[in-house]
């Protein structure tokens, strides 16, 4: 039973964690935005910006970590735009988000074309290399999968822990959660709902951009068009699947990635009897099925997509 044996190969789980890493960053980013009450459909475009900004900063001679920071700043800038339009101005979060995605994507492609007018194949950079953690990486199966990855993957693990800690253990996290559940309680504390929400959208967008940068700086080593390929939309589904909790969303991201890695390997086993497009469809179909499965008990943040007006109840 070859299809079953794949599940116990190291390479499957190494690939799963690699595929999960950008999703973890972007899912945490979307989760922060939604916890504060703002749906961010700019995610797909912001990931594109991050993928380009990080890669281009390194291509232009910067350090790899400088590239990560450049991606985060570019993402935060678009987050600021989304935040200002949807929070104080109260514009439709759906329409604005789609607008941000269209703007961020087209702007990235435009800048790519003027920055690199003559290239036929995208230039490569020296990307992040795997860094084995001593002892831990020697554990069979799990070791190489979890502890022989690039530093950006370790940063992704750390991000989940930090997001969970900030959300549940700090006053700032309490303000973010309250802004998404009951904004007038935030105002009653003398804290500005606008500031909390815009800040959360900026921080979340920075994480989405780092997720995009993972693709160009760790998973691959160059930037090409349409490389995000719906990953942002998948992350929106993962936030719902994880019922807006960082830990559950992490599990969802890894399950999804494992499935994605598995379908690629399954294609080789079936030897072309089933069209390859069917396998490529499966992750998207799985996302929809997962949404249906959790929809009945999904508890949205109560003030998600509800604009807040000071002094209004």
């Amino acid at each position, binding site marked *: 039973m070859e299809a079953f044996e794949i599940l116990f190969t190291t390479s499957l789980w190494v690939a799963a964690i690699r595929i999960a890493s950008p999703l973890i960053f972007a899912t945490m980013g979307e989760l922060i935005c939604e916890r504060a009450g703002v749906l961010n459909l700019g995610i797909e475009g912001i990931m594109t910006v991050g993928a380009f900004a990080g890669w281009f900063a390194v291509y232009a001679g910067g350090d790899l970590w400088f590239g990560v920071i450049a991606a985060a700043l570019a993402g935060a800038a678009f987050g600021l735009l989304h935040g200002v339009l949807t929070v104080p101005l109260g514009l439709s979060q*759906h329409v604005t988000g789609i607008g941000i995605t269209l703007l961020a994507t087209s702007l990235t*492609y435009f800048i790519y074309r003027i920055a690199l007018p003559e290239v036929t194949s995208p230039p490569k950079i020296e990307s992040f290399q795997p860094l084995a953690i001593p002892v831990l990486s020697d554990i069979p199966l799990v070791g190489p999968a979890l502890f022989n990855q690039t530093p950006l993957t370790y940063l992704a693990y750390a991000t989940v822990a930090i997001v969970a800690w900030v959300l549940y253990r700090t006053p700032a996290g309490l303000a973010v959660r309250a802004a998404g559940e009951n904004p007038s309680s935030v105002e009653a504390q003398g804290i500005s709902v606008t500031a909390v929400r815009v800040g959360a959208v900026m921080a979340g967008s920075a994480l989405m951009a780092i997720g995009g940068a993972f693709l160009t700086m760790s998973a691959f080593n160059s930037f090409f068009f349409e490389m995000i390929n719906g990953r942002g939309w998948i992350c929106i589904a993962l936030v719902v699947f994880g019922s807006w909790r960082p830990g559950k969303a992490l599990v969802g991201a890894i399950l999804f990635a494992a499935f994605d890695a598995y379908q690629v390997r399954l294609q080789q086993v079936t030897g072309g009897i089933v069209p390859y497009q069917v396998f490529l469809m499966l992750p*998207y179909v799985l996302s929809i099925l997962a*949404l249906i499965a959790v929809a009945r008990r999904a508890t949205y943040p109560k003030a998600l997509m509800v604009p807040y007006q000071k002094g209004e109840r």
Partner: protein
Amino acid sequence: MRLEPKPSPSIVHTLLYPAGAIVATLLVASLLVMAAGASPFNVFWLVLKGAAGSQFALVETLTRATPLIFTGLAVAVAFRAKLWNIGAEAQLYIGAVMTVVLGTGAVTLPSLALIPLIMISAMFAGALLLLGPALLKTRFGVDEVVTTLLLNFIILLFVSMLLEGVLKDPMGLGWPQSKRIIAEAQLPRLIQGKRLHFGFVIAIASALVTWVIMKKTVLGYEMRAVGHNGEAARFAGIPVNRVLMKTALLSGGLAALAGFSEVAGLKGNLTLDLSPGYGYTGIVVAMLAMLNPLGVIAAAIFVAGIFVGADAMSRSAGVPSYIAQVMVATALLTMVTAIMLTRFRIRWR
């Protein structure tokens, strides 16, 4: 700061703010053009000339506007009832698939029977495709934004599978493309030897019909009520879920017509690059039109003009044609802001 609704928006503001949005869009575009090392005035002139400077340019703009009218209408109808259909791209492709399934010789009828048959089948397929997410929304509470977005990817892969499988043209030299449709399935050209086709007329007629539905029928009234306040509509005895289903059928059907018209009127066969994002651009068109079906015609021609003009400009001035997409996206964001400012007053503290 806080927003206060204006009792009656002044005419000056209604004209001034949208004008400001256009100026802001041009400013953003100017910065990018200068970054690309060209002169903004020259580039804008070339875009204008490329979009409307000759009979050829005008015909090309109207041809490009045709699919955008359909997808713009699809989005306008859905968004009016707050059904967030971001899947017009997928519905377009399903309409195109139906067109080649029926139009490549499987059915032989005279044009006057075959074309309506194909149109209705395409609309039916698109309508069904959106009915799925709409049912998931009303029955299970699954957010339709995500499902319609993900369906875009699923359907494109499905089309790719068909084009490499059952719909593949055996004479296509291995390219993933369908056979060409038969002569009886082709929409006539409006001007001899030009690309503008009868699909444009169908698009205008669809806009008129949609306008009548939205403004003059009970369904249109119910759709607006559901979009304005779903709870209140339910309380007033409007069957909200049934209205959403009808909205989905109408919206999906309209988007599918874009695919039908592109294949039957322009391309003649189905390829994977049939639509360069017409489904997504339809969102911009609908918003620029403030969701008014007749406004969609003007907005679609405007947006198509930017795309066609930028293509022509890019060939001569060397500024990447992606400037068109940037301008369209910027216009969307500035215009929704402008519309908000005409209706609300900002009070600082």
